[in-house]
């Protein structure tokens, strides 16, 4: 069942964090920081994509699979929220 925007926000970070190799467990996530700087390389971004689709239950359409979508946590969350509403 697709998630609502509120469920999404609550679970988003728990899905994202394990893929950020350079973010310590006790360090707060800065939503505007480049995810690349936090350790999300291209392979980790693909794994994250799969994690998100598994947990959200809907595929992310191809046209949204851009470097921009995965640039920051905020960009990614905004994209997912739009999908949840749609």
């Amino acid at each position: 069942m697709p998630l609502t925007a509120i469920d999404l926000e609550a679970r988003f970070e728990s899905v994202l964090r394990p893929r950020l190799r350079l973010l310590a467990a006790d360090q707060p996530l800065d939503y505007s920081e480049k995810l690349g700087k936090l350790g999300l390389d291209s392979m980790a971004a693909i794994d994250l994509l799969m994690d998100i689709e598994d947990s959200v239950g809907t595929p992310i359409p191809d046209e949204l699979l851009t470097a921009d979508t995965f640039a920051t946590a905020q960009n990614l969350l905004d994209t997912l929220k739009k999908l949840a509403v749609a």
Partner: protein
Amino acid sequence: MQANEPVNVNELRRLLAPEFITAKFKKKMAATASPHLPALLDRAAILWPERMFLLGSQPLNYAAFADMVARIASSLLKLGIGRGDRVVIVAENCVEVVLLAFATMRVGGMFVILSPQTKAEGLRRVMAQCTPKLVMLDAETDFLGGEIDSAKLVRSDTNFEALIGEDSTGVPGFPGIDQDPAFLVFTSGSTGAPRGVILSHDNVVFVSAAIQARLGYEADDRIAVFLPMSFDVGLYQLFLAMQVGAAVLLNKPQMAGPELQSTLATHAISVLPGVPTLFAALIKLQSRRAVQLPALRVATNTGDHLPVANIEKLHALFPGLRVFPMYGLTECKRISILLPEEWRARPDSVGRALDGTEVFAVDTEGRTLQAGEVGELVVRGRHLAQGYWAAEEETAKRYRSIGPGRARVMFTGDMGRVDEEGYIYFVGRGDFLIKHRGHRMSPLEIEEAACAIPGIVAAGVVRNDADSLLHLYLETSVAIDADAVTQWLRERLEEVKVPECIHFVTALPKSANLKLDRKALRTLLAQP
């Protein structure tokens, strides 16, 4: 005139207006080997002026590219940059990197492209060795600007246009000979300091033709480069494309993420050079949702072994795709290529030596071994680099004359065997260099950086093949926080060299002469 006598293209271009470049002349050009890389570019610009060379947001055809290169060369000469001078580039893949590289060679200089991940410490060590006259940075590497005092500084994204001259008048022909260095590729040296492999024009022209003989790139090919140009596999795609009139799409490494399939589809990419992680990414994405990529016909793998299972998966996902496992070392660029039709019978081989080159195994005394016997692999041929920049001792260790004919060979440091038909099988590394995430690195560089932390007495790095992670063992005199060590290393080393696991021990294993015992260090991995 002999068939392979080089044509002085610069002279001809000046004398001949385009309407005089006849079909007969073009036919001759096409059959002529270029003695150096500026001639290879001129040849492409005459044969295929309208064909695209660089694809993407700033597309350039061969004629336009050659014109830009000549105009930049004119500016470089005005800046006093000429034969034998060095230009260092620390930037992500972009058109400006390629333009400056070719312009540097055009005036007889040599370029050095460093990884965009380079840290201040790394740049300092390279600058001290090769003393460049010009350095180019980009927005991401701008923070390195403080390291540059004696060289002119240019930014690929802000003031690069100032380097593009009004025209190219006054730029004389290539001032060197084919033995002149064309560029340096920095790699981990055996002492831990980065070493610049000197590739001559002749090295590059020869090996590019030998690679082409195996891979068979075509004029209509569109090649996607996701690997940074600091990695020679990315860089040489330019020369491979240029010798057949093919096109190259330059990508930043992050484009090999979720966007990979759409990038390949949008640009109708037909050739994908990669490393095992890139192909693993493509397999994952394509298995999740198949995207039609009808143009994709060639995939070449290097850097690390591509598992047989993944070659099978690529064949299943892309029927008709030709997958080429390859083996090489920056010190001669490419050693061998296995053809797709040879793969089925010999899935574990890395192929036969390139045409006109030789590979054999030697024992510890440097004696040639029989077919099938395991020893250190050594290579002979015109592709052997000139040595390491300003490092005579290391050059003499790597490049030696052996056998009754005193032939100059390159010791690879790799253990392997060569069968009766000449197929090469890789067994493992013979020296202590580490292969991690497709990069060859010296543990000494990491250990030196760790030992610079106050309170650290000794350090030892080992790669665990079981978990594919780097483990750093530290002997300390005071209590030190592991996160602080990681932070310190991250500020000084490229990300790939920062060990994932840090262990504190009371004493590191040492050999009789008090040197780190690397064999014993390995046994620590088994401990919890």
